[in-house]
């Protein structure tokens, strides 16, 4: 159950301009032969709707868990991982009116195979995936998707990704193709496990070279690579082991467009005194650099601190304070303003109460000259 309301505070009294209540109930039956589940919902807001939100019927082959099939509505999926940004992310195709049927098979060394057909209002999308989590020295996943006709999306996506463990170095790679032409392919490679002498105890220092090459017609709905760019770079990561200290430096050079080369760095530490230090610097080509510095003192059930962020030539400073009077109850206050002639101040107070399956959040904010509020309550009862 979720209830949400928001509005403005005018003349000292709240006026709601948006209300939404959503109640859903799920029933699931499971056995060694399969699963059947349904989620019904009723939602009341500007308009009231009710019906079936999701449903799933899956069957496994009697006597073996290896082979099965399923049919469902609003079944999520369509996710293809890249190294960092995904090739295809959730949300590429919305779950509305999504009907899916599929075949699955689990087998040797955890290898999983799935063939699914997503039936959308205008398209039928076929997805085939096969993956092995570990084959002794490598993990491999293959994913293909075809049948998209919607504007702005590639008609097909295929990817082969994997990670190998060659003892001293662990290459990660993604080979992707988002069309039929030779310029629709992309390669992403990273070498992990190159260990350097650590400058301080309590962690490992890793050198991580990276490269990506993408054809001019390659498209990644998840943003995994930049079309028509050849990029080389690398990171220097300090990975903590037993200490609350970590930092990373990253740089990349775009061979085709040196002006878009970028660099970034971050540092984070929680001290023995309970002080959190966070620094982040990011610079993209000829563009304006962005950076952030945050220092927060946390002790027992209270915190206070400040944050300064620079975006181009704009500096914004913020004061932070938090307090938890009871276990499961907290309040957070944030006041911020620009450090120039037009400070554009804002203040936000957020209180939360969390008790097991029940959560309530009240947010009160002063921004753009008006006071706004929102209330959220949610609960899952089993």
């Amino acid at each position, binding site marked *: 159950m979720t209830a949400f309301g928001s509005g403005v505070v005018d003349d000292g009294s709240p006026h709601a301009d948006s209300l939404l209540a959503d109640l*859903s109930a*799920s029933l699931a039956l499971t056995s060694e032969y399969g699963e059947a589940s349904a989620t019904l919902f009723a939602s009341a807001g500007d308009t009231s709707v009710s019906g079936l939100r999701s449903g799933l019927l899956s069957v496994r082959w009697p006597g073996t868990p290896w082979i099965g099939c399923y049919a469902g509505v609003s079944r999520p999926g369509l996710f293809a991982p890249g190294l*960092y940004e995904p090739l295809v*992310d959730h949300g590429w195709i919305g779950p509305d009116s999504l009907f899916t049927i599929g075949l699955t098979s689990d087998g040797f060394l955890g290898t999983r195979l799935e063939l699914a057909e997503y039936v959308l209002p205008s398209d039928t999308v076929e997805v085939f995936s096969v993956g092995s989590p570990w084959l002794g020295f490598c993990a491999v996943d293959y994913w293909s998707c075809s049948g998209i006709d919607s504007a702005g999306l590639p008609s097909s996506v295929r990817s082969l990704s994997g990670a190998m463990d060659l003892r001293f170095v662990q290459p990660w790679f993604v080979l992707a193709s988002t069309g039929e032409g030779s310029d629709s392919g992309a390669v992403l490679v990273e070498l992990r496990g190159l260990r350097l002498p650590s400058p301080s105890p309590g962690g490992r220092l890793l050198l991580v070279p990276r490269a990506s090459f993408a054809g001019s017609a390659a498209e990644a709905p998840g943003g995994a690579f930049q079309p028509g760019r050849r990029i080389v770079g690398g990171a220097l990561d*300090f990975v903590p082991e037993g200490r*609350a200290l970590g930092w990373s430096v990253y740089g990349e050079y775009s061979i085709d467009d040196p002006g878009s080369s970028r660099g970034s760095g971050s540092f984070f530490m929680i001290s023995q*005194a309970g002080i959190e230090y966070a620094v982040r610097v990011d610079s993209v080509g000829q563009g304006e650099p962005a950076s952030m510095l945050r220092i927060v003192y946390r002790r*027992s059930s209270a915190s206070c601190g400040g944050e300064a962020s620079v975006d181009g030539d704009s500096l914004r400073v913020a004061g932070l304070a938090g307090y938890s009077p009871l276990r499961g109850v907290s309040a*957070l206050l944030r006041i911020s303003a620009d450090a120039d002639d037009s400070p554009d101040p804002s203040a936000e107070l957020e209180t939360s109460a969390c008790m097991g399956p029940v959560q309530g959040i009240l947010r009160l904010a002063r921004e753009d000259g008006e006071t706004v509020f929102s209330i959220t309550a949610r609960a899952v009862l089993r």
Partner: protein
Amino acid sequence: MRYLLPAMLLLLSCSALTPAVMPDGVAIRFYMPEAASVQLVGDWNDWGGLTAAGGMLDPEAGAMVLGEDGFWTASPDLPRGRYRYAFLVDGRRLVRDELNPLTATWDGQTVSLRVIGD
């Protein structure tokens, strides 16, 4: 008295600039003692229910436990693989793991990436 203040400042600066100890290297930890709740959400639990078929956040999904040292802790039992994750603070704010240099993108936001079996 003239030495007391410099001594206190020295003591404070030492503890202020010495990283805290986290004895358990396997568990995922997050320091925010004043939070009402912290959930560990990621690819393995449908991001707390947000990407599940129902699309609703479950307040108990991936619930982390607050220790006396102010760290929230969770030890998800996951098979070998790569997983994206983040901390959901007070059921509202999604925060990445700042002690993990590996990052990824989920739903347009920078989150953390954990490799099991690395």
